[in-house]
């Protein structure tokens, strides 16, 4: 039994798309030492995906479509992994997993990690706020608050929707190790 928010897609029944899957154990190495792996993994995913969206001949002007896609995948994957590393609840044995599914017109990311009940409640409150408020206005109000009191939680999701026109969805479900697992899906049109 799971609880979903937004247009959550059940990927277990999706056999047709190309995908790449990375999974990380919770591990005992301190977060500070593991942090650089987010960027390494995100850049790898960005580079990997460009194979499926090669450069188009005769492209002019700013960044090429291939470069735009590489950059978007790297940014979104990095934000998802940073969130997972910050908020994943260690000790429950749930790995951090990220899938990137490729379709001709879109890329779908799914990242999952274990969370405590308190973290899940905080995330649900943020999701409700995101669903009820214009993301541009929410960005400004969050940044104004950040300037006074610090902290930028949720900004990654806001930049995905504002800057990359991404669609977000979540699922909260029971994990195999007994705790709660949150899965975040991010879809961008390409």
């Amino acid at each position, binding site marked *: 039994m799971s609880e979903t928010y937004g247009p959550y897609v059940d990927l277990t029944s999706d056999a047709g798309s190309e995908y790449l899957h990375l999974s990380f154990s919770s591990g005992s190495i301190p977060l500070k030492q593991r942090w650089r792996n987010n960027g390494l993994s995100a850049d790898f995913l960005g580079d990997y995906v460009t194979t499926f969206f090669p450069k188009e001949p005769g492209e002019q002007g700013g960044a090429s479509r291939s470069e735009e896609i590489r950059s*978007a995948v790297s940014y979104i994957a990095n934000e998802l992994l940073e969130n997972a590393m910050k908020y994943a609840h260690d000790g429950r044995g749930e790995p951090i997993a990220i899938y990137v599914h490729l379709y001709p017109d879109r890329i779908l990311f799914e990242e999952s990690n274990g969370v405590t009940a308190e973290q899940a409640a905080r995330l649900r409150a943020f999701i409700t706020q995101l669903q009820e408020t214009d993301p541009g206005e929410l960005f400004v109000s969050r*940044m104004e608050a950040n300037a006074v009191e610090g902290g930028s939680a949720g900004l990654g999701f806001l930049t995905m929707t504002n800057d990359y026109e991404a669609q977000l969805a979540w699922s909260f479900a029971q994990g195999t190790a007994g705790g709660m697992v949150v899965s975040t899906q991010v879809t961008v049109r390409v």
Partner: protein
Amino acid sequence: MRGKSVNVIEGEGYRVVDQPEENRVVLEGTLRLSGGDEYAPILALLTQALDRDGRVTVDVTGLEFLNSSGIAMLSRFVIEARNRADAAVVIRASRHVPWQGKSLRNLTRLMPALDLELG
């Protein structure tokens, strides 16, 4: 008494340089620090330029990647500048670096007078 000011901050894959003669701060490389505390020295370098002269140029043309915590840090700097009556900020960016065309325009929502040069 003020301590000696810092002009360069370097870390794995990035470099931030304060150029007092131009009152310009140049950010280069890939910035993926883990939050406000880690970005504090960079914010301090930017604020140091603002304290010296209210007209500051922030050059990010060589900044290939900035995570959302870094965007929060730049936003904080822009709000600080907006709150000073005599401040003027120019952000020099490149349309060849995809994130810059997408994310930097949000800064003008925080400071409408900000001059975003997307070259």
